[in-house]
Structure formats: C-alpha cells, structure tokens
C-alpha cells in the first residue's frame, strides 16, 4: 500500500470525456469515455480495485492518483 505521507508516484490513469486529440497519455493510460455516468463508473472501479484517489480537473478530465 502506498504511504499517505509519500507524495511521490505518477498519475495512475486518466479518465476523460475529451477526445484523443485533446488528451493523450504520457506515462499513464487514458480511458476515453462517452458520458458522465461511464466516467463515474470507470473511475470508481479503478479506484476501488487499485486504491487510487480520483481527482476532478473540472474540465471533463479525471486523474487517478495513488496516495
């Protein structure tokens, strides 16, 4: 389990409503979704499975970050 006091660690995954031309993965995978519901489901499942926190960038892109 990653430590809460250790801020290191890359972005685990990106879940976005945007198109591949707008958001691209560098070191982390990108999940392109079509609706808000799909985004919530996708982000929540990944979060529960690998214990990463979901952060809303408030532009349709969510970052999944290990804490």
């Amino acid at each position: 389990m990653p430590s809460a006091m250790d801020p290191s660690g890359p972005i685990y995954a990106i879940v976005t409503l945007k198109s591949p031309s707008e958001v691209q993965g560098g070191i982390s995978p990108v999940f392109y979704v079509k609706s808000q519901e799909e985004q919530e489901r996708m982000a929540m499942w990944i979060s529960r499975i690998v214990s990463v926190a979901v952060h809303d960038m408030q532009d349709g892109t969510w970052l999944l970050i290990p804490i």
Partner: protein
Amino acid sequence: MSSGSSPPIHWIPIGLGILAGVLARILALRSDYRHYPGYPAGYVSHVTLGFLSAVIGAVFFPALAGKEYTAATFLVLAATNFTSVRKIEVSKLTAIDKFTLVQRGAGYIQGIAQTFEERNYLAMGVAVATSVAAQLADMYFGHTWAFVAGGIAGILALIVALVLKSGKRLGTEVEAKIEKLHFEKESLLYVGEVMLMEVGLPKARERWLKEGVGVVITPTTRRGAGAIWSLSQRQAIAQTVASLVGTRGDFGYPERTPLCRMDLPQGHGQAGLGIIPVAHDPQRILDAVRQTPLLESAKFAAVHDPALEQWEQEHHIDQGR
C-alpha cells in the same frame, strides 16, 4: 574490603532500589487507546527491561561504595542498550504503520519510542536515588534507618518520575469545535474555512456530506499555534481520532482517509479535521482531538499567528508579546 576477597553485599539498598525502579516502570506502563505496548507480550518485555534498568541503577552506588569501579561502569552499557530499545521500537512501529489505514506518522512514532527509552532511564534514576539514600543511611545509622531513608527517597523519586513521564496533551493548547463539512467549486471539501482536499467521485462527495464529521482546531496558546503547523502533529491528531471512533474506509477507498490540514487560503493558523467515523459521536471526536499527545518534535519558533491573536482578543488574554 581487602584485595582478593569480595566486599560484603549491601542487600538493603539494592533490594529497595530494584523495587522502586520496577515500580516506576510498571506505574508508567499503560496500554490505552494507543494500543501500545501490546498485552501481554509488550508488557512482559517492557517490565523485564524496566527490571534490568532498575538492577543496574540499584547496584550503581553500592558498587561505588564497595570500590568496585568496574561494576559502576555498567551504567554506560545500559545507556547503549536503551538507545537500541528505541531503535527497535521505531522499526517495529514503522513496519506496522505501513499496513494501517491511518498511520501514526514518523513524528508520533519517534515520540513513542523516545518515551519508552526515557521510562527506562526514569526507572534507573529512581533505583539510583533509592539505593543511594538507603546505602548512606545504612552506613551511618544502621539497617532500620536504611529502610526508612530508602523508602522515603523511593517515594519522592517515584513522584518526580511520574511527573516527568507524562507529556502534554493537545487539549491544553488548542480549542476544538465541530463545524459543518461542505463542498466549494463542486469538489473541494471544506470544514469551516479550512480546505481539506479535492474529492472527484460524486458518490464519495455524497458520503462525506452524509456521514462525515468536521472539526476546526484553533490554537489557544503559542505552543499550540506552532504545534498544529507540524505535519506530524496533525497526522497524530487524525490517527488518534481514527483509533477512537474508527474510520469507515478500507483499501480501495482512499478518498475516505481522515485528514487534518491547515487553513491555507486564509492562513488564519487554524487546522481542520475531516473524518468519516464508524461511531458517529461528535463529542468523542472532540475528546480524541484534545487528548492527542503534544509531540515533542512538533515545535516551532514563536510565530505571528492571526488565529491565536484573534482568540486572545476575544478572550481578553494577554500572553505578553
């Protein structure tokens, strides 16, 4: 005391010293909400260590009086030994900490380990004081007075040790108050004016609003004002609260981790705590905040603190700045 033969052994000072030293260690040993040391294994090892330190302390002065200088140097050995006790405690607690939901944090762990080391020294000190008094009384006034002097010195040393053993609690340095949790800009979790974190999942936001409890911590003393700026101190607060009321989270639910953060946008010097407790008992949460140990490592130089100054103004306190 001719060379070649051993000098007579002074059992009264040694016995009284050991008794008082062990008593000092046992009286300081309590496993409460901190769940540490564990019972019975932790108790056995710490009482044993306390006994050893009491023995070393108790024989120190009789050995000197008997011109057994080599025996007296064993005190040095003891110090090294207790330092290693601290290191063992640190590594043990750090290892446990890696697999707990709400971690104690490095500062708290160092504090606990240091306390264990210190209590062995206290046991040793009590034993030394007792045996010195008993030995001197024995040499000048006889056996009966040795018991009396040793007993009085032992009780006095025990009182001093018990005063020294207990550190301060946060309750004397801060004021804790329940405040409503709310979200700003859709996803930023606030308690009062303190921003805690960004919660991305809408379901998690609902959970925080429905079951979360928020506490705002305002310093009432300069020590408190400095202490809550320490990350270790705030982690200790979160850990203490979580260990007393539980935290409704698990692996896979990182957004439910209880957090204690400073009020940064305003910089008022207040801290905020957010937790989703198992036992929804606000009074107990406040008590938990107040009885969090004030960490020795959480010390800062005197700071100009708006929150503290406002509190002092409201309560007409002049702390002589």
